[in-house]
């Protein structure tokens, strides 16, 4: 996917640069922006290290367990029918906690663990189960309490109040997650029959 975005952007800029007569600007951009990338990296990496360090302390002290427990009722509601004591459920609630705390690198392995647990329940079917769809969709719509990377960049560019956007981010995230969950539920009812039929025709093709 990204190989197309990358190539298209560069080729399009060469074409547009020629048409607009801005080839010297394009040349300068190519040579300057790569070192700007390193400057950007330097301004981000400190905050990333600080936050990962603090979160490691929170995980070791069990402070994150508290939030996992807060999540149980919500997770029970979203993953109806899934045993709350199962490995899958545990991994799901920890995945949601890690997302909330902005621990992308911790959230992904937990989410993948939850996916492979759900895979066992799905008995290796080629069609995604309801729980799988819900888990993935929740992960594509991020809810984050403290957006550290964004705040670090805002601070770098001289924001008077880098964290002022937190309430707006929370509300926007909640809106986006709720709309995603509603779509999942709405299509869960209408989509199943069609899926069953598609599966049937797929099997039919295989038999031929």
């Amino acid at each position, binding site marked *: 996917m990204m190989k197309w975005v990358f190539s298209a952007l560069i080729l399009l800029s060469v074409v547009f640069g020629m048409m607009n007569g801005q080839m010297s600007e394009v040349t300068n951009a190519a040579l300057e922006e790569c070192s700007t990338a390193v400057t950007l990296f330097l301004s981000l990496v400190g905050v990333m290290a600080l936050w990962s360090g603090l979160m490691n302390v929170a995980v070791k002290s069990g402070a994150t367990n508290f939030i996992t427990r807060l999540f149980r009722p919500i997770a029970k509601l979203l993953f109806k029918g899934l045993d709350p004591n199962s490995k899958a459920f545990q991994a799901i609630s920890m995945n949601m906690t890690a997302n909330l705390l902005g621990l992308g690198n911790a959230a992904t392995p937990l989410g993948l663990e939850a996916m492979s647990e759900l895979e066992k329940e799905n008995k290796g079917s080629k069609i995604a189960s309801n729980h799988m769809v819900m888990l993935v969709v929740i992960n594509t719509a991020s809810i984050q309490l403290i957006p550290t990377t964004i705040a670090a960049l*805002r601070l*770098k560019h001289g924001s008077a109040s880098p964290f002022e*956007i937190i309430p707006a981010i929370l509300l926007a995230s909640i809106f986006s997650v709720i709309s995603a969950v509603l779509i999942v539920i709405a299509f869960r009812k209408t989509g199943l029959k069609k899926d069953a039929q598609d599966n049937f025709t797929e099997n039919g093709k295989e038999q031929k």
Partner: protein
Amino acid sequence: MRLTDFIIPLMISFILIHGLVKGVDVFNEFLDGAKDGLMIGVKILPALVALMTCMGMFKASGALDVLTYAISPLSSAIGFPPECVPLALLRPLSGSGALVLFEGVLSEHGPDSFIGRVASVLMGSTETTFYTIAIYFGVTKVTRTRQCLAAAITADFAGFIASAITVRLFLGI
């Protein structure tokens, strides 16, 4: 002084005090975690170089202006600033690519402008949808993801619209 100024210092204090009470070696555990954070930063550096270079070229050639101009009637119809449109387009595809555009918006329009704030909220409330779907289903045998993509794209779109609305709501224009 705003309420949000308290969040970070209080959170750091809480984590450290809780760790000390539970007998955690807070300094060494901090160093362990910080090392992981550094490694992630190093991992995304090559992507940052690649994407900043191609985005910089795209912008310098004037192609970005054409694209933004083409989409602006649609975005202003939903109250979304046209300057954030490229960011919204790239956000579901690439996290580091979006970061690069976000940085560009901040340096051009300032973090405390309406545009800068909408870009910040957009970054915080949406995810790299396609990447997430690919790696999550990558660990399973599933080939049919059903309503997953539709729901995820709806969530992104809802996030874009909501970011403009919530900024107006909490911070004014």
